[in-house]
């Protein structure tokens, strides 16, 4: 009994340390043909399974199967995570107060205060405009600054690197068949077809789009809209012009310098005027900014100029994103 145990232990030990019993299904690589003694090659350590130690076998197995098994476990776990998160959230949603009910805790005294006193306190007919550009104007200032910072960082990442691109770097390009490929050297300006239909439609619609954008920006305190949505409409006019007439034509009146100057001026005006308004308001001083009567175009105190500032920043930023991502330059 003891002898048998010892034999089993020895064979197990041999298997772990290498030189163990040969597995039955092992494929033995053919022996190299006998060669001259001077050209003997060193024996391949991994050629026979039973000669490798357990650690070597493990690392070999990990090298072959590890990534596959990891990806299976990873996708299974991520699906499981998502299902658990969604079911927890759904259980929470089921306990929420009913949709569209006026007794919801979200409709509390804050909302009552904003709606009942917002009109005569801010002078804006649009309560949301009064909310975001008067009560919470510093928040909107932060948003404009975030947009401006994002545009400047994209300009830094894409614009500067393409200007002093080295010759051995890869850059994406489009060949005549419209297929993308990578080429060495700086990107060549892609050839744009002169499209008569696009050009005609753009000539007709760009003035209308510009006018629509201006209306949405200027009427921000009277109707739905405001600086952000109006600025987005203005930027679509710029993008359409760039597509129809080419970036060079837009570059003549809106380039990187124009963008930086107009956006920083708008941010500065915003910060100074709203800073003055908050300073006088917080210290109970007399403010020289008239509120105007609700419903007039010149009403709402600072909301109209602030909307124009925000519209300028948003239009420049969104056009800048488009130009930077398609041309690499503004």
């Amino acid at each position, binding site marked *: 009994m003891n002898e048998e145990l010892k034999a089993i232990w020895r064979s197990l030990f041999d298997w772990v340390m290498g030189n163990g019993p040969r597995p039955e299904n092992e494929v033995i690589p053919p022996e190299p043909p006998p060669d001259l003694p001077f050209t003997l090659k060193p024996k391949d350590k991994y050629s026979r399974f039973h000669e490798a130690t357990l650690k070597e076998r493990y690392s070999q197995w990990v090298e072959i199967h590890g990534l596959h098994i990891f990806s299976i476990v990873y996708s299974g776990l991520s*699906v499981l995570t998502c299902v658990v998160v969604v079911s927890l959230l*759904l259980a929470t949603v089921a306990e929420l107060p009913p949709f*569209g009910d006026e007794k919801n805790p979200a409709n509390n005294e804050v909302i009552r205060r904003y709606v009942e006193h917002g009109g*005569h306190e801010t002078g804006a*007919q649009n309560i949301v405009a009064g909310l975001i550009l008067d009560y*919470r104007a510093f928040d909107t200032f932060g948003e404009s600054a975030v*947009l401006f910072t994002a545009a400047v960082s994209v300009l830094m*990442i894409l614009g500067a690197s393409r200007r002093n691109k080295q010759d051995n770097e890869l850059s994406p390009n489009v060949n005549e068949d419209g297929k993308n490929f990578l080429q060495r050297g700086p990107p060549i300006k892609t050839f744009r077809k002169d499209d008569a239909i696009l050009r005609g439609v753009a000539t007709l619609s760009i003035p209308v789009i510009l006018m629509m954008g201006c209306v949405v920006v200027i009427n921000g305190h009277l109707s739905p809209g405001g600086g952000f949505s109006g600025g987005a409409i203005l930027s679509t006019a710029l993008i359409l012009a760039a597509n129809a007439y080419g970036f060079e034509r837009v570059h003549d009146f809106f380039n990187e310098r124009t963008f930086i100057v107009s956006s920083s001026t708008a941010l500065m005006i915003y910060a100074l005027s709203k800073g003055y308004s908050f300073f006088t308001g917080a210290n109970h001083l007399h403010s020289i900014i008239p509120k105007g009567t*609700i419903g007039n175009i010149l009403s709402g105190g600072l909301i109209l100029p602030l909307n124009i500032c925000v519209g300028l920043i948003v239009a420049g930023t969104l056009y800048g994103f488009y130009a930077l991502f398609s041309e690499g330059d503004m």
Partner: protein
Amino acid sequence: MLEKLLLNHYEAAAVILSGIGLTNLLLQRNLIKKIIGLNIMDTAVYLFLAAKGYVAGRAAPILLENGSGGWVTSSSVYVNPVPAGLVLTGIVVSVSVTAFALALTLKLYESYGTLNIDEALLRMTEQQEELEAKVDEAEEGILS
């Protein structure tokens, strides 16, 4: 529970959308698709906020005229105006983050020629090893 979910179907849809976005973010290996997943999650948050601000049968929060030259300022006429402001903040931040992430992705594609994150990491390590080998060679050259 299902009845309550049907009552709050906008919120339930927002939660499911956010789950889809999270799955996309975790499972996709393509960086552009990952960014799309992030955007789906953002959209879910906007839907949730807009649904929380809605009150059935009420008007948009723009003051209405009351017929005698004044304005209706009763809070029982308009929906909640605060979620509109919050969604605006969310949209702006999401646009900025998306643009920045896409710019970084473009730079990665220019450097490694792939959008797949695993392959990019693989090529990164290869380049690093090549660089180290070159540095070693140069050092040996200087020493000898």
